[in-house]
């Protein structure tokens, strides 16, 4: 760094911030060298002037106090490029939406601005230089596991887009049932019976270990699409008159016609089956039976018609003579008389209603095959019900936590034919993005300090995106195409061996220390760690709305709450902060899946230590907010400020839980077993 100290540019937003901020005091923030005051930093003429000034000032660290708009960030990027600054040696501090617009008293708004500017400068001096991007040479081939409708739709689309596709059939069944899409002369269009054993590597460059009849082989693939189906178990016709919907469907599909059903009555029991996929197959079966002169009864409670064209087909079936019987609470009573089934239900308004049927078709949800081994091979977590991944907003409906691995079809959630195909085509496009040939530069977001790494493998176990691997070197390796930059590994590493390019540990601590000193605010500071995916955008909206909140609330942006360590929570309290707030996504909306939970764990640990020191462990608090929900954030900030005002410990007025309470539950340690909160992976 040159001897001048970091450079500071202050933008007055065309003078709109005059009277709301004291620019002279911002300019006098200690530690800075050259200072420029401009009024149009985000305009082309403004950033050009700033770039020229920067070059002349010879600055190699730059802080711009401007606004929180993307335009300011873009302008900063242009200035950095023009002035030859590393992207991580320059930053924008939002003094408009985070100070001027939300703190009506210019004195406090300015004081907070000074602290934010000083913190940014302190952080930049600890920033890591941007590492050169890693290069991925994707394989151009995609592995589709399961020649189901969804899988074949994906495979077909991928071939249309010029990708090589290998379709694996883990059911090892006769694959003639589903004829392969695409060019049948191409050797890779026939599903290969085989089992997936392991997938290592990263999106674009996976090695899939596959067991086939010829033995075990390693395939280099750029993406994996899982589209397995329930096993194709077809019971022999006529031996049973109690079938599942799936069995009946497959039986008719294989037999072509069903002479044995002519003139017979078939009852479909869909009472516990509100899925559109069940309605879809029941309707088509019932319709075809009615058209062959038989009789169809459909018992249901909620008819699942939330699929394209299903309501229309429901009406068509009704007109064609299919009988629909809606039932309420009780399940139907099934009996037998003269070799036929008797189905008796209580229909509101009609009373007991009995029908006889020759065949009963139970509409239980098509059970997925046991997915445990497949999920383990892919290192993807299954849902508690044993189905595919998901029920998490960022993953629906085709993604998994592991970049480059997609999961579609009925083994994920019941889906109609139309939906299965649509999801297949969507997954194909997502897979193409990972696998398309051609060199791709991927920015490196985590750097491993090989000297520090103790190879404890904590990172490997906690990484939500399976981006950590044991390489050949003396340290663990982070795969750049898999890494999503959340920093969960860096927070969990006991040796401090992983540095996040966006949020290195020392930078966070330096920022914190700088934030906690500086000109007096209207009360002791409250540190709020804000997730860049949720709390930061919500806070920006508050700023745009000029919704006032306490100026003592100082926001520290982190890529994900999972980046927070106990130390980050403890240090502010030790330095006199009144409260520490960890505000991020909800568990099910976290892009990195574990962020909020890891944050709660860090808060618990910090609360235990704080408690032992006589500090108020209850002052560390976690909360969730959506990026669009500024009302909740406003209420939260008000509540936190109010609690801090009272100075009351353990107050429950604020939303979110105080960490100390939960920590007390988890502190019991076994006689010969050491349990430490920060290391736990299981919930």
């Amino acid at each position, binding site marked *: 760094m040159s001897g001048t100290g970091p450079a500071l540019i202050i933008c007055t937003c065309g003078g709109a911030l005059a009277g709301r901020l004291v620019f002279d005091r911002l300019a006098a923030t200690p530690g800075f060298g050259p200072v420029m005051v401009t009024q149009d930093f985000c305009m082309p003429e403004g950033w050009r002037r700033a770039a020229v000034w920067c070059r002349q000032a010879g600055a190699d660290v730059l802080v711009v106090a401007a606004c929180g708009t993307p335009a300011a960030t873009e302008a900063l990027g242009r200035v950095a490029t023009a002035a030859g600054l590393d992207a991580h040696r320059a930053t924008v501090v939002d003094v408009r939406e985070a100070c001027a617009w939300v703190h009506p008293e210019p004195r406090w708004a300015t004081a907070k601005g000074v602290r934010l500017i000083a913190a940014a400068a302190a952080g930049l001096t600890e920033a890591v230089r941007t590492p050169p991007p890693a290069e991925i040479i994707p394989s151009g081939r995609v592995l589709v596991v399961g020649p189901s409708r969804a899988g074949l739709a994906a495979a077909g689309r991928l071939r249309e887009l010029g990708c090589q596709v290998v379709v694996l059939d883990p059911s090892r069944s006769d694959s003639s049932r589903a004829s392969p899409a695409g060019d049948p002369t191409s050797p890779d269009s026939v599903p290969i019976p085989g089992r997936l054993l392991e997938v290592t590597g990263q999106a674009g460059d996976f090695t899939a270990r596959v067991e086939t009849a010829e033995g075990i082989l390693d395939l280099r693939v750029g993406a994996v699409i899982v589209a397995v189906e329930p096993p194709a178990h077809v019971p022999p016709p006529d031996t049973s008159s109690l079938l599942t919907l799936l069995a009946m469907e497959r039986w008719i599909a294989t037999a072509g016609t069903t002479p044995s059903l002519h003139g017979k009555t078939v009852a479909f029991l869909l009472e516990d089956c509100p899925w559109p996929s069940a309605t879809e197959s029941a309707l088509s079966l019932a319709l075809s039976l009615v058209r062959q002169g038989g009789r169809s009864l459909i018992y249901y409670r909620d008819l699942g018609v939330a699929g394209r064209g299903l309501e229309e087909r429901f009406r068509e079936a009704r007109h064609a003579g299919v009988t629909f019987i809606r039932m309420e609470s009780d399940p139907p009573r099934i009996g037998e008389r003269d070799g036929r089934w008797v189905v008796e239900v209580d229909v509101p308004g009609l009373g007991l209603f009995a029908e006889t049927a020759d065949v009963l078709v139970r509409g239980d949800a098509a059970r997925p095959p046991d997915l445990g081994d497949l999920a383990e091979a892919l290192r993807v977590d299954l849902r508690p019900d044993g189905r595919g991944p998901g029920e998490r907003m960022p993953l629906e409906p085709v993604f998994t936590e592991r970049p480059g691995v997609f999961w579609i079809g009925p083994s994920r959630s019941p889906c109609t034919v139309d939906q299965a195909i649509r999801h297949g085509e969507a997954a194909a496009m997502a897979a193409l993005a990972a696998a398309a040939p051609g060199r791709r530069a991927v920015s490196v977001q985590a750097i491993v300090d090989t000297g*520090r790494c*103790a190879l*404890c*493998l*904590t990172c490997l*176990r*906690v990484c939500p995106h399976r981006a950590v691997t044991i390489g050949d070197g003396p340290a663990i390796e982070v795969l750049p195409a898999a890494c999503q930059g959340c920093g969960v590994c860096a927070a969990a*590493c*006991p*040796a*401090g061996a992983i540095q996040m390019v966006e949020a290195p540990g020392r930078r966070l601590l330096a920022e914190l220390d700088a934030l906690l000193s500086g000109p007096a605010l209207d009360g002791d500071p409250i540190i709020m760690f804000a997730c860049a995916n949720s709390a930061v955008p919500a806070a920006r909206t508050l700023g745009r709305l000029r919704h006032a909140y306490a100026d003592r609330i100082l926001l520290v942006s982190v890529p994900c709450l999972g980046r927070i*360590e*106990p*130390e980050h929570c*403890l*240090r502010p*309290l*030790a330095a006199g902060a009144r409260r520490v707030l960890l505000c991020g996504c909800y568990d099910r909306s976290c892009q990195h899946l574990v962020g909020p939970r890891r944050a709660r764990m860090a808060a618990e640990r910090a609360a235990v*230590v*704080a408690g*032992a*020191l*006589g*500090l108020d462990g209850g002052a560390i608090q976690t909360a969730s907010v959506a990026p669009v929900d500024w009302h909740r954030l406003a209420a939260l900030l008000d509540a936190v400020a109010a609690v801090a005002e009272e100075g009351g410990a353990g107050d429950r007025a604020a939303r979110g839980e105080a960490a100390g309470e939960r920590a007390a539950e988890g502190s019991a*340690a*076994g*006689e*010969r*077993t*050491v*349990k*430490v*909160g*920060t*290391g*736990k*992976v*299981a919930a």
Partner: protein
Amino acid sequence: MIVAQQKPLEEIRHMVAGFRRLLVLGCGTCATVCFAGGEKEVSLLATALRAALGKDVAVEEATVQRQCEWEFLDQVRAGVGWADAVLSLGCGVGVQAVAERYPGVVSLPGLNTKFVGLTEAPGTWSERCLACGDCLLDRTGGICPIARCSKSLLNGPCGGAQDGHCEISPDIPCAWVLIHERLTRLGRTDLLEEIIPARDWRPSHAGGPRRVVRPDLRVLAEQEV
């Protein structure tokens, strides 16, 4: 790996009372892996101590690769020289190594060294070896009755095991049940028929402090043997 656990903060506070310059010294090997004394724990404890002890006490932090090697300890000579006391977040070996290398400095244990064991699951470590000095794992299916049986019995369970759990600590499995299961799976239950004679405990700590000497590895001819 050696597994250790940080002492309660109360105890540490009591221990460091009266010192004005404190060096919190971490260890980058076992103590790091068991989340007891790595760089992050050092930093957390240092922050905690600064807050607890106030401005009159200076707290510095450092972490070495392994506290049980002289050369690594030499790297922090300046810091140790400055301090009145070194609070070692290494195992008991580290604390003593610091004391031996720096005779003029008070060396304090920040950890309780628990056992030789492994990471069962993230956040859980358990004991596997008692360092008895005479390994018999070949006869017990690779499960150590000395470390894992509460009574270190050598020839089958004590009879107090309930549902496969130890009668002393019901939350741990009975080692002999595990041994039996494992040998059954390996088809080697015949090993159980051999009586393991009463042990000679001299190779263990019962024989006094131990030492391993490999003359072939000596660097200096005059090195004391």
